[in-house]
């Protein structure tokens, strides 16, 4: 395949960026998208040009490190992570536009690499059960109905890639935040800190500068792990009932 890649290049967070087009040839349909990027980078290196920087690690769709806004969609045309996208999803002669995630809370560090530490700070605000190591009850002393465990699991599969923020017209992080709030709100282990967790995580989400949800559903439609919008509804419930009943002034 012969392709034209229109890629966002930006030297660092301080400098302005812009698009640069790169023709590329000899791409096989069996390559993954990131392997195609590897080929480009090998060529650029050969020519003495700075390779295109992008985040990636496990390349099996689970670590959440890869990103890229490809042809107007996060992670490209398929509902999967970029590392699992293969070139057979494109045709010979295509022009592929590759942009970084765009959000105030995800500043570009270089080229296609963005800083997603805002997600870490949202989790730090309360995305956990406060138990220390040791001194916990036997695992089977906490029975959990299978259905609830499965539903909590569905929420827990979020990989924190940020595609929801990238897809949302408001750059809202509500799908991400709600997935964790939901998981712990459903499980008995999460009950003790339930109210405080909802209040704190949402406060942190707002403080990071993410937008508000307008229920377009783009986040869930693009989520590579299929996290559902019901999590956002649950988060809203959790939040409203927390603010009216908690004793935090």
């Amino acid at each position, binding site marked *: 395949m012969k392709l034209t890649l229109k890629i966002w290049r930006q030297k660092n967070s301080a400098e302005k960026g812009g698009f640069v087009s790169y023709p590329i040839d000899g791409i096989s349909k069996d390559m993954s998208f990131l392997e195609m990027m590897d080929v480009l980078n090998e060529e650029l290196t050969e020519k003495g040009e700075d390779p295109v920087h992008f985040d990636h690690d496990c390349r099996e769709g689970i670590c959440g490190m890869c990103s890229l806004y490809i042809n107007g969609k996060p992670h490209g045309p398929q509902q999967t992570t970029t590392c699992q996208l293969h070139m057979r999803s494109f045709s010979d002669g295509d022009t592929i536009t590759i942009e970084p995630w765009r959000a105030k809370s995800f500043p570009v560090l270089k080229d296609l690499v963005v800083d997603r530490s805002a997600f870490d700070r949202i989790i730090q605000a309360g995305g956990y059960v406060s138990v220390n190591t040791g001194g916990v009850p036997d695992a089977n002393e906490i029975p959990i109905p299978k259905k609830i465990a499965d539903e909590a699991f569905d929420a827990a599969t979020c990989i924190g890639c940020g595609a929801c923020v990238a897809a949302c017209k408001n750059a809202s992080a509500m799908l991400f935040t709600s997935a964790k709030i939901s998981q712990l709100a459903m499980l008995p282990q999460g009950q003790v800190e339930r109210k405080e967790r909802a209040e704190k995580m949402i406060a942190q989400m707002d403080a990071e500068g993410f937008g508000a949800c307008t229920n377009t*559903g783009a986040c869930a439609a693009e989520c590579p792990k299929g996290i559902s919008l019901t999590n956002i509804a649950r988060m809203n419930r959790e939040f409203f009932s927390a603010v009216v009943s908690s004793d935090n002034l």
Partner: protein
Amino acid sequence: MSWVTKTLSSTLGRKLVMALTGIFLILFLTGHVSGNLLLFKGDGGEAFNMYAKFMTTNPAVKLLSYLTYISVIGHVIYSIALTKLNKSARPVGYAESKASTNSAWSSRNMGILGTVILVFLAGHMYSFWFQMHWGGIPIVNYAGEEYKDLYSVVNVAFQQTWMVVLYVIAMVFLGFHLSHGFSSAFQTLGLNHKKYTPAIEAVGKFYCVVVPALFASMPLYIYFTS
């Protein structure tokens, strides 16, 4: 900041205001469209004019109407604030976006739809609501009691083609606004449930077609029958 203002200035609090005012306005529209059906009665406007008087004088309705004004103003102010916030969350946009593949057009353009509806609303209120309250309006007599003849104002207004076209177009916008707004409000309130959400969505789809269609049929009816 007290917990109330803190909550109402959070993203979720603002959404809550949007949803609650939105639902109230949906209820208002339901009442409004039901009452206006009297236009179809063919009694020369008697029932409609009596209804109009009731709506402008009854204290309970008055209270409701103040709530409606507040809802409209709240809905508008909070939408402006939210839009501003949402725009600032993405200072650099995408060069290419295929949002149409992941979300409905109306859901992404509630601001535009809402703005058009707001402009329409201003004109609509000037034409009828303002005239009813403070305008020079003919008086009619039913069974010895005086009534403002709002019906004749309506009748005159909808003789004009451009007015009718404008109203019908505005109702299309309202329909799209409602097509997202109806179920969205429930989602924001956290009312999402396997059993009820499909029903809410079905009612929403029905509502967003039927209510604007009924509203639009009124100018059309008057235009073609008189």
